[in-house]
């Protein structure tokens, strides 16, 4: 038993976990500790959390941000899965170019991006908050693209696609019934990345004069900093819980490589 545990927790893994703990969990734990302080009594309590959830706009903005993130995830999957499947199957030289283009959102300043969107989007799109998911999609593109690309690279895509088609599956069924379930891990990672990035996006939203959860938190923070930290903690935990539930509800079928 001890041997098995030692084998599992080898030095590189332990060091990685320590660094991860130091840089991710320590600030989060500190923020949490700070958010439950009650300066008046000098002790701890849930005062700021209660203050946050009883604020009129809390649920309005968090729900708005969540459905915008959901729409972004749908756009990402609908656009990227067929596109990447085609790029992988066709062995097209365009693939290198598109690989490069997908990185552009990392280097284009968000201000330029916002101005570009204001100029290029038709007015009826600019008038609705639904312009945001399209822009979030572009911002999440470098991560979502790579995540799906790795998934598609790791499977015998051509053979299983042809096997599905010759067994009678059209392209839609081939993608939904075979490819997506086979690269389930990559798809879940793409969903998580895109959802988290969309939920926390601030700069672009402010520049385009929309109000979402992050912009609302910033406004609230000016009156009650401890309350704002409590809200931020909740905005971390709620999506995490949602993604965990999604992962649990999507049945684990792809067990390749595991005996």
């Amino acid at each position, binding site marked *: 038993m001890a041997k098995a545990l030692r084998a599992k927790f080898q030095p590189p893994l332990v060091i990685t976990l320590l660094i991860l703990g130091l840089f991710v969990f320590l600030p989060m734990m500190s923020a949490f500790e700070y958010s439950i302080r009650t300066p008046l009594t000098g002790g701890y309590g849930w005062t700021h959390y209660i203050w946050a959830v009883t604020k009129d706009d809390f649920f309005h903005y968090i729900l708005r941000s969540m459905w915008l993130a959901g729409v972004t995830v749908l756009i990402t999957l609908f656009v990227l899965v067929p596109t990447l499947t085609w790029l992988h199957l066709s062995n097209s030289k365009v693939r290198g170019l598109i690989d490069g283009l997908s990185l552009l959102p990392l280097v284009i300043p968000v201000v330029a991006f916002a101005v570009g969107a204001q100029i290029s989007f038709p007015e009826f799109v600019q008038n609705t908050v639904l312009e945001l998911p399209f822009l979030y999609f572009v911002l999440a593109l470098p991560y979502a693209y790579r995540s799906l690309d790795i998934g598609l690279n790791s499977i015998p895509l051509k053979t299983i696609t042809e096997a599905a*088609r*010759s067994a009678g599956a059209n392209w839609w069924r081939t993608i939904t019934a*075979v490819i997506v*379930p*086979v690269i*389930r891990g990559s798809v879940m990672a793409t969903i998580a990345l895109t959802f988290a990035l969309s939920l926390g996006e601030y700069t672009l939203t402010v520049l385009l004069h929309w109000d979402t959860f992050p912009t609302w938190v910033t406004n609230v923070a000016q009156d009650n900093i401890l309350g704002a930290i409590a809200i931020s903690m909740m905005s971390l935990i709620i999506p995490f819980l949602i993604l965990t539930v999604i992962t649990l509800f999507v049945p684990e079928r792809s*067990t390749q490589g595991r005996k």
Partner: protein
Amino acid sequence: MSSKSLILRNISKRFGNVIALDNFNLEVGVGELVALLGPSGCGKTTALRVVAGLEHQDSGTVLVANENISDVPAHKRNMGMVFQAYSLFPNLTVEENVAFGLQMRKVSKHVRLKKAHELLDLVGLDSQSKRFTHQLSGGQQQRVALARALAFEPEILLLDEPLSALDAQVRVNLREEIRRLQLSLGTTTLFVTHDQEEAMALSDRVGVMNNGVLEQIDTPDTLYNKPATSFVASFVGTMNRIPAQLSDGHVQLFGKKIPVLKNSNESGKVIALVRPESISIKSTESDANAKVLTRLFMGASSNIVCQTKDGTVIQSLRSSAESGDLHPGSAVKLEVTNKEVLISNA
């Protein structure tokens, strides 16, 4: 749905500058198993993929039961296909893999699982139906792939070198199983392979391909005994290439005048093509025309490799009992027992 005939008419296909199929014609009768045999890059897999609809020909037509299906997409062609690489869906269990084609045809779950179990029973894997594909051996995976290809009762079964990734023993077992299933279900089958033994053992007829052209299509017997071209002669089985002089439609081989298979009025130096079993060998000191280099014992028969006085290496296949006294260095007299021989240009 019953099996149907397949006709490929004047199919041409290029990949850039490479001609994969050059005015290719093929007919496969109902319930027949035809193998396409040829070296790598001869176009045999392209022909199969054109039939499956996974590749579209530049010109020509594909007919199934005399109906032109050239523009029908792959998923509507109703053809079962087994691939060279393992192609099972790793997210599905064995029975779900086999039932996949029926699921795509919107057959009810109860019926498709029943059919999947029938097919798995036929390939001897019903007990593995709940397992995932990575838990199976290579041979078992190809069996499941075969069951999947047959489950929706395809009009034509396409086999793209399904045995080439398997061990020798598994290959032999599975090829016998494929033939047994094909005969019992009567499915029209096109089988692509580069392994001549496999093609000869399995098929009703074998088509030998070279450079995108069908050189000859015939029964395995005819192909072996009466090859139409020197390529077929060399590709199918072992062939001795003996330099000879052609005149008046005859060649002189080991002092014996033998008519050539395709009568020719030309004369000059040619290569006579003679099978090892058509070379008789006799131990002698007086009128020897060759000496033994090695004797390869293969059980009931032995392959005796000799060298003639002019340096030509000749193989002779004889029964082991009759050739037991031949040892390296033995002086022997070789003779050609054929009544006719095939020739190629020197």
